């Protein structure tokens, strides 16, 4: 079954098309890499899949549902419940503790706060002791683990990761990607990673290579 189905896609800002994609499918469990230089539209691809950017034309299905056709509020909720995000800049809410960051993700998805779930995800990632810490006091590695914890907390079917390894050295890069794979397997999610980082290419069975579109 297809987790993501993209067809006839054109996306960009206003009339300026930065991404054109005739057909792109990701099967459930088929972790996929979107590879290309900056400006090739890989972030845009993730954004239209998650519904935070609009398409110019084309169809987007996630888990069998047309995210591009949903009402905005429905789309917000769908995104919160079915898609987890790992962003290049981690964007943890600094005013909240690690625990509350995860609780916030549960609430925003419309779920009740499940403390046991938060504890178990944090201990899987080896940061259970950081529960009450403020994100500003975490090391880079710990912060990344919290970001991954937040991505999987609602058991999403799809995890979108934007440049998760770009800022990391080789060792940390391996560790981060290992963590993503482990967590995706653990929670039954499909990974879709966008990056220009060729180091992680061998780990993926499906790779979509995008080129920067010519000015035409």
């Amino acid at each position, binding site marked *: 079954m297809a987790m993501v189905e993209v067809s006839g896609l054109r996306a960009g*800002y206003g009339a300026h098309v930065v991404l054109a994609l005739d057909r792109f499918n990701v099967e459930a469990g088929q972790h996929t890499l979107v590879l290309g230089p900056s400006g090739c539209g890989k*972030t*845009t691809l993730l*954004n239209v899949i*998650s519904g*935070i*950017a*609009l398409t110019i034309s084309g169809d987007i299905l996630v888990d069998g549902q047309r995210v591009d056709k949903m009402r*905005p*509020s429905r789309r*917000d*909720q769908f*995104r*919160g*419940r079915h898609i987890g*995000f790992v*962003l*290049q*800049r981690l*964007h943890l*809410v*600094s*005013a*909240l503790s690690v625990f*509350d960051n995860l609780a*916030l*993700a549960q*609430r*925003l*998805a*419309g779920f009740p706060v499940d403390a046991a779930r938060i504890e178990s995800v944090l201990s899987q990632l080896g940061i259970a002791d950081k529960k009450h810490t403020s994100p500003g006091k975490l090391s880079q590695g710990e912060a990344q683990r919290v970001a991954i914890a*937040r991505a999987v907390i609602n058991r999403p079917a799809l995890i979108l990761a*934007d440049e998760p390894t770009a800022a990391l050295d080789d060792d940390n890069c391996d560790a981060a990607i290992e963590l993503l794979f482990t967590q995706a397997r653990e929670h039954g999610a499909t990974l879709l990673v966008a990056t220009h980082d060729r180091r992680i290419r061998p780990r993926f069975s499906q790779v979509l290579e995008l080129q920067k579109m010519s000015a035409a």
Partner: protein
Amino acid sequence: MNAMHIAFPLALAYLRDRLLATCLNILLLALGIATIVSLLLTLSQAEQRMDRDAAGIDLVVGAKGSPLQLILSSVFQVDIPTGNIPLVEARRIAGDAMVRKSVPLALGDSYGTFRIVGTTPDYLSLYAAEIHSGRVWSRPMEVIVGAEVAARKGLQLGQRIAGNHGLTETGAAHTDKPFEVVGILKPTGAVIDRLVLTAVDSVWAVHTHQPVDQGDVLPDDEKELTALLIQYATPLAAASFPRRVNAISGLQAASPAMEIARLFSLLGFGIGALKLFAGIMMVCAGLGIFIGLSNALDDRRADLALLRLLGASRTTVFLTILVQGFALGMAGVILGLALGHAGTEWMAQVLPQVRGLGFTGWTWISQEGMVAGGALLLALLAGCVPALRAYRDTGNANAIPELLGQR
């Protein structure tokens, strides 16, 4: 409802995160509210107090001078008297057909900070004052004391007290001619609570240099009173009676109602300026909230985009900001009301100028509701602008990636 469920704790977390700015916002608003509230409390109690003290007194007759001073000294017992009037004149006025009741006052001495007033038992009936224990004076040098005098000085029946000359605490004491406390009054909430009352004869006796028991101390034509409090027999008297009194040399008539009105119109400018000042403080507080929330919004644009990414509706984002304004307003109102009431109570207890006027901070007036409502509205308004900006900024197509710094 779910949006509020998310926005409320998040708003509180954001406020806690910038604690210093939050506290300053709250404090500034609270100070503005406290200023207005204590002003309103004091004014309303002063007005109430004056109305009660002047109730039943249509006219005051005293020596020529400032009519306001005459009213202040003889009705409210705060200023020094304008002078004295001859007893014979006072008797003529009291006997006029237009006068139903006249109460003589002889001032000049005090007991500590409390005035000793020579008068007749009619003065008690002006304030419907009742005896708590003991009896009314029957001879010179017997006094009854107001409830507050008794409480503050711990006076008992039969106790002897010495007056001091003048209306301040520092006058020379008349220790050679002590008064005997024969009665204590029940509290009335009026000026009489703070007075020591005695026969007019007692005052005359204290101010001559003869022993008290030698009968009449002065010939009648040398005796003087400070003022006469008058109740008209008919409302028509107001038209002609004061004019007739004023025609008598050395005498003037003043109406408490008119002088109170004049006093408040004189104070009006000062009161208005204070209200304006407090109002400006509140508006500044509102601006402070607006600036604080706007700055915080600039710092947290990525956070708000993240909320949207994680599934928050635009309404949730809007409420997250608006609730911060509301919470600041609410905290400011609560703290401001507490400060205003506690401050008024403190002033009433501690400041010598108002101590003894029986003011209290532990009372509520309806205008406070308007002040509180106005402050809340101001805070909501101050929160509304950045909230709307956040609503707009996170709503445009492609805005979220931009706020997340993806391009």
